């Protein structure tokens, strides 16, 4: 058993966020007291300000920022919404309570901060992320969708009522939801040497049944499609804090390829955030070239699949290497294959044949 985490990361992050929020609170307070109009400076998330950082290997925001001032009548309302959110997040984090995007929309109404609709409140949440450079999960605000994790990993809860309580994530074969308590838990210990992220719940279950976690000394993560931020954050922590390499298995189509890319280098939507990426993660498959190589049964691509390929070809991250090559082959094939396609050759074909082969192959890229 390894214990690569010697500092209590989750706790530190929480403290850092709380002191940042307090700093903002003090600033607003002093302004009001001195008869000045308080304001927030928010890094601009406009398209012009999103750039790809080759060194960081992710999208980041440029230097442009916008001022949201309470002096400007047209911004007064959204200024107040943002101040409220900071205030509300402060309560959530201090009290160790979690909420969803939808909760936030409704909670506002108790403070006569009316959001017109949920998109408006979602936007304010992104504003606060940009101001604090922290993902909303740190605010204890979670999206509805959940993904799961399974494997030999010991965690220690920090949520109220469970503080200090430990737990091993291989005790329940359905896996564990990557929810607020897991996201805020300390990663204590693991015997695993690898993290396998897999796009689909069905395959995740198969992997557990086939004891992939034992055979390959791995932690298995179900991304449930495009990986939610908390999942991406967990993958990153497994990689950074525990030093585990991360590999990704997704459907053999353009969306699968991009799921891998987002885990590796983030999305433009989250350009204001760090710590959501795993730059060293490896995309195992299913590659376009695998479709022919493994003689997988295919289905034809749709119009939107093809359009998506053209879109991604403009993305700076798809300009070279295997990423570029696979897009081209997909475009040539105009067909795609799902992970389940391996079942044609037996239910365990994917774990017995494909996975070992690809892991072997991955050592060279």
């Amino acid at each position, binding site marked *: 058993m390894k214990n690569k985490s010697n500092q209590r990361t989750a706790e530190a992050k929480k403290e850092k966020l709380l002191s940042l*929020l*307090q700093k*903002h*609170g*003090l600033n*607003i*307070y*002093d302004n*009001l*007291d001195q*008869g*000045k*109009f*308080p304001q927030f400076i928010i890094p601009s998330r406009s398209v012009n300000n999103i750039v790809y950082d080759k060194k960081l290997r992710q999208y980041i925001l440029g230097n442009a920022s916008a001022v949201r001032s*309470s*002096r*400007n*009548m*047209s911004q*007064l*309302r959204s*200024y*107040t919404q943002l*101040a*409220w959110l*900071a*205030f509300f997040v*402060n*309560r959530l984090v201090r009290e160790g309570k979690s909420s969803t995007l939808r909760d936030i929309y409704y909670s506002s109404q108790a*403070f*006569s*901060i009316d959001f017109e609709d949920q998109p408006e409140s979602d936007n304010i949440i992104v504003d606060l992320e940009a101001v604090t450079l922290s993902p909303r999960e740190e605010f204890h605000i979670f999206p509805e969708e959940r993904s799961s994790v399974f494997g030999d990993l010991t965690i220690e809860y920090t949520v109220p009522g469970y503080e200090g309580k430990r737990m091993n994530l291989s005790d329940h074969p359905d896996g564990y939801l990557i929810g607020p308590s897991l996201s805020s838990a300390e990663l204590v210990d693991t015997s695993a040497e690898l993290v396998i992220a897999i796009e689909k719940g069905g395959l995740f279950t198969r992997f557990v049944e086939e004891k992939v976690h034992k055979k390959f000394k791995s932690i298995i993560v179900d991304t449930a499609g495009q990986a939610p931020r908390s999942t991406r954050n967990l993958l990153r922590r497994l990689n950074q804090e525990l030093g585990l390499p991360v590999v990704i298995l997704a459907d053999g189509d353009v969306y699968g390829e991009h799921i891998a890319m987002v885990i590796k280098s983030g999305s433009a939507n989250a350009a204001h955030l760090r710590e959501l990426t795993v730059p060293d993660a490896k995309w195992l498959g299913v590659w376009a070239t695998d479709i022919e190589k493994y003689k997988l049964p295919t289905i034809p691509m749709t119009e939107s699949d093809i359009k998506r390929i053209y879109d991604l070809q403009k993305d700076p991250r798809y300009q070279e290497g295997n990423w570029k090559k696979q897009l081209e082959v997909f475009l040539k094939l105009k067909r795609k294959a799902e992970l389940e396609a391996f079942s044609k050759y037996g239910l365990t074909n994917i774990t017995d044949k494909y996975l070992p082969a690809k892991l072997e192959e991955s050592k060279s890229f």
Partner: protein
Amino acid sequence: MSKETFSQISPSEFFYRNRDLAGFSNPTRSLYTSVREFVENALDACDQKKVLPDIHLSIKAVDPEQSDPKHYVLTVKDNGPGIEPKHVPHAFGTVLYGSKFGLKQARGMFGLGATMAILYGQITTNKPVTVKSCADEKVIDEFVMLLDIQKNKPVILKHTTKDASKTGLSVSIVLEGDYSKAGSKIRDYVSQTSLITPYASMTFEDPTGEKFHYPRIVKEMPPPPTIIKPHPHGVDVETIRRMIVDTHYQIPAVDNKMIEKIKKELGLQKKSLTTKDMLERAQKRWADLSRPVRTIIALMSFLNVDFDGLQKIRIDDIDVANKKITYWDFGESQSHAIEIDSESSYYKQLANTIQGDTLLTFLTKRFQRVGPTTAEKFCEFAKLKPERRIGSMTNEELVRLADALQKFDDFLAPDPSCLAPLGEEPLSKGIMKFFNPEFASVMQRNASAYSGFPFVVEMGIAYGGGIPATGLKVYRFANRIPLLYDEGSDVVLKIVNEMDWSRYKVKGDPPLVIVSHICSTRIPYKTVGKENVADRPELERELKNALQYLARKLAVHMSRQGAADMEKKRANLYAKYVPLISQFSTELSGKKKEPNYKQLIKMGSEIEEQI
């Protein structure tokens, strides 16, 4: 001696020949027009005697069960000066009898309105008119009459008197009408009349028994117009002919009073002489005789009659130029014309008496703002001799005179003292009371003139408040009469519609009202229905100037209002949000006491709008 016989027409024929002109084309329009004629007469009468009008109008169905069109009793009662009993039959029983022919602004013009309404009632229902009048605060005379148009005189069915203490007049007729169709127009008419006559109090009781009351809004009467002489540009041949006739002589009525007068001037009080002796005596004393007496004597000579004979006829015309006298013989009920013997010594006498003034005197005496210098210049322009006696002018000369009067450019502009605009203050008060707007402004333009007729434009604008946001609405008035029909082709509407309202911050369907009042001795009506005004360039210019002035005032109000609204909005927003921000920051910063944010709320509402 030639004889002429006038052809006679029946009352209904006369009416039907003229009904469209007078606004009696169908039961709906006729009911409306009748209301108008009587209400306007009542207001005119009060205006003339400077009495604050109190008008009561009622329309009652004779048989409410019947369906329209049906018979209605229309009654209009006022508190004006009334009419002296002896004039009542004429005023209401003869066509073209009126007291408003003089040149000054009045609602009535032709001496036709009341009689047409009465006639319409009589023809459609065969019922007489009832007029009650008190002119002396002592006796009220009640006349029940039918009209005899053949004789152009009333037939009095009943005349009674009663004691009274207040002057006033009431007219009541029975007529065929369609209130279900005319009702809304009549109600509009009454309410709009109250707007343009804010010094009047009016009540209207309609056939359903509903009562509309419009109380007096202002207590002062606007200054009354003065009667003035015509402007040379404003007269035609017919008017000149009439002016010449009534300047130079009046054919005197031969009654006992006149006979007394003649006897006195001839020194004959005691004696009674033969006609021949009388004429001789007159010859000797000619220079001392008054003009009417000279005329009578001359007529007696030409007609060869005595006093008794004179009393049996009515002299209608003495045409010196054509040497002709026309008279009506009551005994024969016929008109006769006889030639004058130009050899007679009376011819010259009569001619001089009735040929009257020289052209120069005529011009300076009978027209406004014409002095001797202008008159002489004019005569030169018209190629007429200044010393020419106007009574002897030939037809061609009269036409030349009329034509030149129109064309001569050096006459001074018409005198507007004959006009009676309402005035800015009463108009403004009327508008405030009527519309209860958030903003109103009025303006009276200086007098101007077209073709010799002076006119004044008054206009008001009102915005917001009690005015519904259903788009611009125009209320048109002429000589204090609401114009409700045929608005499509009216000059006022044309001007209003040509306006680029967006330049004055007016958008969409604004709660906006324009009140336009044109005062003139002659409103240039487009059609005989007197409902829409033609677009004379002079009139157009005045309307446009007034409208632009008012629109600018409105624009100023709108931007002031906009700024005030914005400040209010800001104040509300800051009052709402700043305390919240304070509350959040207090907890966020871990402080116990809230910051002092009051000043910020105040500052917030005062910031000038950026962007």
